[in-house]
């Protein structure tokens, strides 16, 4: 019986694939935007004031999904932290904490780190003007911190500060979204702030502020992930000294 069901399913799948073959030969390249794309490009300059249409979509048209994305990232960071605390051997500690990365990385990394942070902040702040935004910019900032960890300074990671920053950024995102209730539309994540002058740094209403929150959140979460992965249990701030 199971074999028969499998055969039927397989046969149906093959038939479906065969039915797709003619489409390969008379496929045409679309020459115009579909209705949704054209409408968003038409609408985004006045509704969002953002020069980068992708950012307008990510933060404004589907802002709730972005809030969900940030939550997914938070849950995965939580999962990594829980899993990493289960490592009982000192593999990661011997790989990272007891090694200073060598002379070249020590000095070269220290030279480059501020510039990497600067580029990260730039990308976060210009999310509504040029490609980029909170997610890639936050990753860049976390990368700069990872260089510090590679040079053996993970023990000095301020975990308490990172978790406060992360929570505050999440609350800030929701608070900026709640500003939408002040407007005439009375809905969450509506852009009620003044749009400013098109193509300037302080434009597009709440979009740069929300992206700043996303940037802080992503940077602190990823920093926590890499520092938790590279710290051995019992190594963090001495409060779990009693556990072997």
């Amino acid at each position, binding site marked *: 019986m199971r074999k028969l069901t499998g055969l039927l399913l397989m046969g149906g799948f093959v038939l479906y694939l065969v039915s797709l073959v003619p489409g390969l030969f008379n496929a045409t390249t679309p020459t115009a935007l579909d209705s949704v794309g054209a409408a968003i490009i038409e609408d985004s300059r006045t509704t969002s004031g953002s020069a980068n249409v992708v950012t307008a979509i990510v933060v404004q048209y589907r802002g709730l999904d972005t809030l969900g994305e940030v939550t997914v990232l938070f849950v995965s960071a939580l999962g990594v932290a829980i899993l990493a605390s289960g490592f009982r051997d000192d593999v990661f500690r011997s790989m990272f904490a007891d*090694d200073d*990365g*060598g002379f*070249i*990385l020590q000095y*070269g*990394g220290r*030279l*480059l780190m501020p*510039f990497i942070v600067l580029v990260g902040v730039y990308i976060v702040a210009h999310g509504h003007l040029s490609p980029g935004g909170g997610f890639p910019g936050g990753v860049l900032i976390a990368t700069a911190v990872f260089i510090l960890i*590679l040079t053996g300074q993970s023990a000095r990671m301020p975990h308490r500060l990172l978790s406060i920053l992360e929570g505050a950024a999440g609350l800030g995102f929701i608070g900026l979204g709640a500003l939408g209730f002040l407007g005439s539309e009375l809905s969450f994540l509506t852009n009620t702030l003044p749009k400013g002058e098109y193509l300037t740094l302080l434009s597009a209403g709440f979009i740069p502020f929300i992206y700043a929150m996303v940037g802080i959140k992503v940077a602190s979460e990823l920093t926590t992930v890499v520092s938790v992965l590279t710290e051995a249990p019992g190594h963090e701030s001495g409060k779990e000294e009693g556990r072997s």
Partner: protein
Amino acid sequence: MTIAGNVLVLLGSAFLVLGGLGLLRMPDVYNRLQAGTKATTLGAMSVLLGSAFLAPGLATKAVLVIVFIALANPISSSTIARSAYKAGIPLAPVSVRDDLKSKEAAE
């Protein structure tokens, strides 16, 4: 300007192709690092310089990226080589000398 830019871009692409070939052909991690970092440093710099010639509006950014590559590529490749050596990845059998090993043995 256009000719110089095109020549530089072509030269850089040739170096990048050679670097990719070296990644495939070299026998061990350390030799591959030579191909994968030295050739691509020069290749990427040449392509960027060529694009600065072709589009003068981008020249400032291109020069900044060149400076960044000149700083970051040697640091990262030396760090990769160092961690590979520390992790005990062996040299290819055809290697003839290991200066670091003989230096550590002498100390």
